[in-house]
C-alpha cells in the first residue's frame, strides 16, 4: 500500500514541477509581449529583421499530394530566380481548410498568398479578406484575352480578385469492359441526352428490384449538382443566373425544369441509379459497379494510382441543343494586409504561377488543365487520349458564380431528396430550389 501512495505522490510532484516550468515559460512570453508595443508580435519583429535582405511569403494550399509536391519544386525554382524572396508553403486538409483560415483572422495572422476554391472567393471578397489583383501586373484586357472566360467567375465589383494556374472540366467516364459486356461499342460513347439514357438502361443490372450494377452513377453531393447546373441546364438552353448575377433565372425558362427532370430520371423512372450506391459514385465506378460517371479531370490521377487495371475511357458530356460542361478551379489571391515590397513579391509569385511553363507542368503533375487558352489548345494536349476530351470541352465550359458553394450544393441535394425520398412532385421541388437559391442571392447582395 505504501508504495502505491509514494507513486501517486511522486506523480503529483512531478506534475506540479512540470506545470510550474510550463507556466513560467508562458509568463515569460507574456512579459515579452505585454508591457510594450515594441514587438507586438514576436513574429513581426523577426520578419522586419529579415526585411532588409529577404521577404518571406506565406503560401497556403490545401493538401493534395501531387499539388503539394509540384509546388515545392516550383517554389525552389522561384526562389532561385528571385533571390530576395522566400516562399513558405503550408498545407491543411481540404475538409478543414476554411476553419484554418478563419481561426487565424482574429489573431491577425494567416497567409500572404492563398489558394482558394473559386466558389469560396465571393465570400472571402465580401469579408474583405482579399485585395484585388494589381492592375499593372494583371491588366484586365490581358486576362480576358489570354485566359478562358470562365475565370470571370471571380471577377467582382469590376476587379479580378484571384487568378488560377489551372482549371478542370467535367466529362463522361465510362467503363469499356462493361460496355462490351452489354453489347455496346466501347468506341462510341453516348453523345446526346437520349443516348445517355438508353446506354444507362442497357448497362444496368438489377435483381428483385435491387440494383446490382448501376448504368449511370448518380450522386448529387459529388459532381451531380455541378452537372445539373452548368451541364444539363445550359445544354437544354436554359440559364441558372441572370447576367447581373443577382437574379436566379433558373425557373424562367422551361429548360431549367426540363434539365432537373432529366437529371432525376436516372434514379426514378429509368431505375439505373441510386444515391449512395456503393457509398459514392467514385467508389462505384472504381469497383466496376457503375458503368458511367460524370466526373472531373482531377479524378484521373486517383484512377491511375488506385485502379490501374480499370479499362475506362473518357468522352465529352453528352449534349442536347447546346454543348456545355461544368468547369471549376482553384485560384490564387493576395490577402488584404499585404503591402509594399511584400505585395510586389506576391505579385511576382502569382506571375510565376500563371506562366505558360508552370501551366504545362501543372497538367503533367496534377491532371489539371491550363487556364490559358493558347497553352491548353495545343495539339499535344487536345489529342491526348485522357485529357483530350476535357480540353475539348473547355471552350464551352461554364463556371457557375457561387455566393455560397456549400449551401447552394445543399439546396440541390435537398431538392433531389424531396423527390426521391419524400415523393414530392419534381416541379414543386424545382420551384422550391429556385426560390431558396434566390433567397441566398438576395441575402448576399443585400449585405453589399
Amino acid at each position, binding site marked *: 500500500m505504501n508504495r*502505491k501512495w509514494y507513486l501517486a*505522490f511522486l506523480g*503529483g510532484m512531478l506534475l506540479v514541477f512540470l506545470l510550474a516550468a510550463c507556466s513560467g515559460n508562458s509568463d515569460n512570453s507574456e512579459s515579452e509581449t505585454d508591457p510594450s508595443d515594441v514587438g507586438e508580435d514576436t513574429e513581426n519583429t523577426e520578419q522586419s529583421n529579415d526585411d532588409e535582405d529577404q521577404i518571406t511569403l506565406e503560401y497556403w494550399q490545401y493538401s493534395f499530394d501531387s499539388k503539394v509536391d509540384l509546388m515545392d519544386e516550383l517554389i525552389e525554382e522561384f526562389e532561385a530566380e528571385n533571390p530576395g524572396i522566400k516562399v513558405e508553403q503550408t498545407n*491543411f*486538409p*481540404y475538409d478543414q481548410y476554411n476553419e484554418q483560415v478563419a481561426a487565424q483572422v482574429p489573431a491577425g495572422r494567416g497567409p500572404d498568398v492563398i489558394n482558394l476554391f473559386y466558389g469560396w472567393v465571393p465570400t472571402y471578397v465580401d469579408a474583405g479578406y482579399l485585395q484585388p489583383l494589381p492592375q499593372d501586373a494583371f491588366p484586365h484586357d490581358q486576362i480576358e484575352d489570354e485566359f478562358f472566360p470562365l475565370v470571370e467567375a471571380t471577377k467582382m465589383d469590376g476587379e479580378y480578385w484571384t487568378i488560377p494556374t489551372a482549371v478542370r472540366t467535367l466529362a463522361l467516364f465510362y467503363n469499356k469492359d462493361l460496355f462490351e459486356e452489354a453489347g455496346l461499342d466501347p468506341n462510341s460513347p453516348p453523345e446526346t441526352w437520349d443516348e445517355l439514357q438508353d446506354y444507362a438502361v442497357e448497362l444496368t443490372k438489377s435483381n428483385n428490384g435491387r440494383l446490382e450494377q448501376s448504368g449511370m452513377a448518380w450522386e448529387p453531393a459529388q459532381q451531380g449538382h455541378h452537372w445539373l447546373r452548368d451541364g444539363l441546364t445550359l445544354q437544354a438552353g436554359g440559364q441558372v443566373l441572370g447576367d447581373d448575377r443577382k437574379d436566379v433565372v433558373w425557373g424562367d425558362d422551361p429548360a431549367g425544369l426540363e434539365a432537373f427532370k432529366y437529371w432525376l430520371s436516372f434514379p426514378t423512372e429509368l431505375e439505373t441509379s441510386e444515391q449512395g450506391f456503393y457509398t459514392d459514385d467514385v467508389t462505384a465506378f472504381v469497383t466496376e459497379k457503375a458503368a458511367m460517371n460524370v466526373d472531373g479531370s482531377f479524378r484521373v490521377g486517383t484512377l491511375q494510382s488506385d485502379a490501374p487495371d480499370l479499362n475506362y475511357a473518357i468522352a465529352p458530356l453528352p449534349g442536347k441543343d447546346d454543348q456545355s460542361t461544368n468547369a471549376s478551379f482553384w485560384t490564387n489571391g493576395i490577402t488584404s494586409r499585404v503591402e509594399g515590397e511584400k505585395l510586389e513579391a506576391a505579385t511576382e509569385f502569382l506571375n510565376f504561377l500563371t506562366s505558360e511553363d508552370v501551366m504545362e507542368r501543372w497538367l503533367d503533375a496534377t491532371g489539371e488543365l491550363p487556364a490559358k487558352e493558347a497553352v491548353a489548345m495545343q495539339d499535344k494536349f487536345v489529342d491526348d487520349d485522357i485529357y483530350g476530351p476535357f480540353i475539348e470541352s473547355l471552350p464551352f465550359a461554364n463556371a457557375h458564380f457561387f455566393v455560397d458553394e456549400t449551401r447552394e450544393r445543399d439546396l440541390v441535394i435537398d431538392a433531389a431528396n424531396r423527390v426521391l425520398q419524400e415523393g414530392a412532385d419534381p416541379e414543386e421541388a424545382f420551384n422550391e430550389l429556385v426560390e431558396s437559391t434566390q433567397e441566398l442571392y438576395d441575402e448576399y447582395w443585400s449585405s453589399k
Partner: protein
Amino acid sequence: MKRSKLWPYLLLIIGAVVMVFPFVWMLSTSLKAPMDIFNLNIIPESPTLENYKHIFEESLFLRWFLNSIIIAIITTISVLFFDTLVGYIIAKFSFVGRTVLFIMILSTLMVPTEMLIIPWYMMSSDFGWTDTYWGILFPGLMTGFGVFLMRQFMEKIPDDLINAARIDGMNEFAIFFKVAIPQVWPAISALGIFTFLSNWNAFLWPLIVIESSGLRTLPVGLSFFSSGEAESKWHLIMTGATISVIPLILVFILLQRHIIKGITLTGMK
C-alpha cells in the same frame, strides 16, 4: 459462491459479435490492397502489409504517434492530479463559494469546444504558443468531466474516515493521498482511461494550432490522407486507425484491472 449460469455468457457473446464486427472489418480492410478494399470479403483474399509499410515509410507516422503519446500522457497525469484534488475538495470541504465553483466548473462542459477555438487561438497567438506542444495540450490540462466524476465518488467516502485521520495528526495532503485516493481507485482508473483516450483522439484544436508537419498528432496526421475533393485513401485511413487503437487497448487492459482491484486494495489496509 456465485452460481455461474450459461445465459449471461450467451448474451455477452451475441453482444460481443455486434461490438467487434465493424472493428474486424476495419482491421481486414487495412490488410487489403487499394483495389481490394471494395471487396466485401471479411478475410482478405491476398492479405498484404503494404499499407502498414507505406504508412511508416511515406509519412511521419512514428513521429505523429510519439507526439500523441507525449501529449496524452502529460494531460492525463495533469488531469488525474488536479481533477482528483478539486473533486475531493468540493466533495469533502465546506468553504465559501463551493457551489458556485462546482457549477462553474460543470458549466465549462456545456460549451462546444468548437466555439472556443477562436479565443484559444487568439490567446495562443498572443503568447506565442502556436505550433508548440504546450499549445496543443494547454486546453486539456484540467477537465470539468474529471472534477465532476471525482466529486461523485469522493462524496461516498465516509466523513468519519477523514476525521479519524485528522485526529491521528495526519496533515491534509497526506489525508488526500493516503486516505481519500485509495478509496476511489476505480474512479481514478476510469478517469485515466477516458482522459488518455479523449486526448489521443483530439482532432480539431490540434489541427488548428499546429502548422509544422512534425508536430502533428496522430488524428491530425491521418486526416491528411483524406481529401474531401478528390480522393480519400481509405486503405491508409483504416491502417492508421487500426494502429492508433492499439495503445488505447493497451492502456485499457493496463488500467481496467484497477477498476476491479480497487475495493480489494482498500480492504487490505
